[in-house]
């Protein structure tokens, strides 16, 4: 892929959280332990693309999203936004980056300030960035999020709105500065089923109209299948597979991806039933297994898998996998 195409390039990104072990452990000169939440992840997000990042809880997908926005500082690695390393930006440049990169959180019951009116909440970014014409901008943003007529929402408080409306308000706020890039962290998982599709629909339409790139973080492969262009699968802090969404769903290569896909139930009583191909649950991220992190649960594990860490490499055009099984 040509780099001009990429809006964001993540190179070998790491986030290690130190584990607090206490004084006694330190005095016994115990070594510092880390939760390696994100451990050497590389991928690109193209302009106008919805890139999915999927995996089970604790795989590091949310941490990755937050580190890219520098809401959490990375431990190591590069985050290139239009070719410039975000981790080295000066304060003023950082403010500009904040204008261009936004986030939509999972839970609209938690992410809206209960004491702010919708108008104040949506207008806040304009004030921070010193942008005028507030009333028109807020009205436009609400209208774009399909909260019409916008004036009706100006002086209401979050508790007066339903979950779907709240998420629309959160989307209006994240879009008001015309960002190029939005991290959407499980934006529909807290919402009711009948509302989910309309919120996803809105996100796709904003992408089409405004040429926004998304990082869509989710544990739900069914919604990912509906919105993403490409997707990366994470397991214990590492990307194990990355491909076009159709290709990944139809021809997954990594045993973990296969297991994930087989486990997803289908809303069709005549379809094949969901299967738990692998047993057990994700191990403790403090003591990650050596070699391939998935090997203790993998039915095909070989000797090499226990010793060496497989690299994520391109095995077909636009299809990368980190597994020794795949030639």
């Amino acid at each position, binding site marked *: 892929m040509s780099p001009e195409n990429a809006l964001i390039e993540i190179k070998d990104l790491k986030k290690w959280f130190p584990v607090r072990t206490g004084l006694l452990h330190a005095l016994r000169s115990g070594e510092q332990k880390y939760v390696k939440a994100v451990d050497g992840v590389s991928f690109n997000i193209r302009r106008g693309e919805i890139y999915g990042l999927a995996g089970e809880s604790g795989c590091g997908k949310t941490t990755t999203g937050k580190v890219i926005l520098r809401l959490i500082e990375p431990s190591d690695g590069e985050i290139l936004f239009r070719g410039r390393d975000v981790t080295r930006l000066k304060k003023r440049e950082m403010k500009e980056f904040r204008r261009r990169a936004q986030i939509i959180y999972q839970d609209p019951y938690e992410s809206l300030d209960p004491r702010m009116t919708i108008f104040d909440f949506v207008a806040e970014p304009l004030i921070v960035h010193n942008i005028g014409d507030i009333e028109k901008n807020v009205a436009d943003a609400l209208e774009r999020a399909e909260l019409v007529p916008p004036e009706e929402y100006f002086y209401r408080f979050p508790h007066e709105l339903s979950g779907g409306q709240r998420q629309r308000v959160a989307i209006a706020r994240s879009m008001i500065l015309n960002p190029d890039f939005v991290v959407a962290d499980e934006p529909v998982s807290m919402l*009711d089923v*009948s509302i989910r*599709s309309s919120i996803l629909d809105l996100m796709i339409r904003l992408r089409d109209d405004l040429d926004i790139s998304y990082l869509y973080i989710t544990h*739900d492969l069914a919604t990912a*299948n509906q919105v993403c262009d490409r997707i990366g699968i994470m397991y214990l802090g590492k990307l194990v597979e990355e491909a076009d969404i159709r290709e990944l769903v139809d021809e997954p290569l990594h045993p973990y991806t296969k297991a994930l896909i087989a*486990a*997803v139930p289908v*809303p069709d009583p005549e379809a094949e039933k969901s299967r738990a191909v692998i*047993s057990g*649950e994700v191990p403790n991220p403090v003591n990650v297994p050596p070699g391939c992190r998935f090997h203790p649960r993998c039915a095909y594990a070989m000797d090499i898998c226990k010793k060496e860490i497989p690299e994520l490499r391109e095995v077909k055009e636009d299809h990368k996998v980190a597994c020794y099984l795949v030639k």
Partner: protein
Amino acid sequence: MLLDVKDLKTYFETRSGYVKAVDNISLDMERGDVLGLAGESGCGKTTTMLAIMRLLPSNGRVLNGSIHLDGLDLLNMEEEQLRQDVRWKKLSMVFQGAMNALNPVFRVGDQLVQAIRVHENVNKEKALKRVEELFTLVGIDPKRATNYPHEFSGGMKQRAVIALSLICNPDLLIADEPVTALDVIVQAQILELIRDLRDKLGLSMIMITHDLSVIADVCNKAAIMYAGKIVEKGDIVTVFKHPEHPYSQGLLTNYPSIKGGKTKFKPIKGRPPNLIQPPPGCRFHPRCPYAMDICKKEEPEMVELEGGHFISCHLKTR
């Protein structure tokens, strides 16, 4: 017939009036049936089940209807008799989030033993033996009975509360959102367990969930609820493949699936009504793309289309 619910009406008394949470619903189940009860939050799924269990909160009122379980009239039963003869022995429930309600300071096995001894006159050894059998049945190593809840993973806790619901061999198990908080692979493990229990024990179950794919995965019958009413019910393939009610159609066509390519969403407009003053006529009419004049005035009756496929919609009854 194992369960027969007729014209059940359950309202909640609040300061602003009665919340018409469940309004004239009828359900029936044969032995071995697994019924999926689907609908959005606040549509009355859980209230229906609490009414069947007779566990409504103090402001809940059953105003009309009857509930028979295996011939027993549950609504006219003394509380004490219900507790001794029905709850857990004939009818048990896995509550939503029950896995987080295990007592953290007692061993998991002891919590099951205690529940067994409340219901049955057996000594501790016998109860422990039963716990070990149940653990094996639900796929937990019986040695783990001496563990505390924090030593269990999420999936194991969910297995443990399913075991807890099975201690007295109930005829009917009600499971409220049994897999919603679980990760996808663990969810598949629990769904496998549920299908296994259905096949091995011939257990009848009601699954309450908003997740239509879970219902398609384990149930043989489905009922779709909207705003306190059942709008459509029937066997799973009929309801899911040939839904006739506009609400079921809207829910199902917009349900994301991992199968097939991207589909164009056609979201249902608007949102569910306030149940203190639900819309007159059909409760779905303000959101229905096909609403006619009659829908605004008259409440549609539940009619049978063919072979146990019921629907309440004026479009089909005229």
